[in-house]
């Protein structure tokens, strides 16, 4: 599993990485945080599917259990990957928004 295979996957991995960008979180906190900032409610299976994929790609890593819950944290590689993906998305968003603005202004 490499970052290339993550690249082709859905946005769930990006949502998880974004949630972990500031501090480690366990599963329940991840789901609540993603719901708060993205309006997307992930199921337990979906979340752990994404976490497993990210862990195989060494983009996140588990921390020792706290009260029988395993928090996960983003790795340095994960942070770099997230930065690249978000920069790319921001560039595409900027182009798209500019073109929409031009089209609206000319119509």
């Amino acid at each position, binding site marked *: 599993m490499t970052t290339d295979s993550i690249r082709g996957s859905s946005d769930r991995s990006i949502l998880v990485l974004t949630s972990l960008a500031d501090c480690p979180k366990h*599963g*329940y906190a991840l*789901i609540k945080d993603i719901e708060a900032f993205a309006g997307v*409610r992930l*199921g*337990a*299976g*979906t*979340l*752990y*599917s994404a*976490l*497993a*994929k990210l862990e195989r790609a060494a983009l996140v890593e588990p921390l020792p259990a706290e009260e*029988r*819950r*395993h928090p996960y944290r983003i790795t340095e590689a994960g942070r770099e990957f997230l930065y690249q993906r978000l920069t790319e998305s921001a560039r595409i968003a900027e182009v798209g928004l500019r073109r929409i603005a031009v089209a609206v202004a000319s119509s």
Partner: protein
Amino acid sequence: MTRRLSARRIRELDPRLAWLLMMLYPRAWRARYGAEVLRLTRELIAAGETTPARAAVNLACAAVVERGRALGHSWRPALAMSVAALLALAAGLSVTSHAHRAVSASAAPAPASLVRFLCSARSAPGPRKVPSGRLCAELPIRCRIGTGHAVKVIPARPAGRVTVKSADCVLAAPDKARTSGP
């Protein structure tokens, strides 16, 4: 109280279904994440964030994805596993909904047309004496025998609720009743 108990049971993931769903995942994945994902599922259900049915569907779908990943690019085994997973899920949901129906049926007294006497599900409908005379109970038609569901005691007996045990069911079965008679 029974109604509250039933409501609480419905707000939990059936352990048999949970086990079945975990079996859908590849062994390595199950060993690494199985306990965590089940704990999180229970937390979400307990917090009212999801329902057992929705959680089960989510786990089954994720299992299909993980199986597909484990099998790599070979699509035929992946398809076969997907079909098997969906069939297993359907069977599991059927078992769960049956159990929930039974719990609901025992929680609220069933209409007269929907009750038969103890163990009549195994025999012809109609009143039947329990040979030992220890128990005479009404059993909702959908209540499963031998699973410890609470049932109503018929008017001939003191009011209250009793629990049908599998031993009582065997005692009341028609063949046993005949053999135990004079």
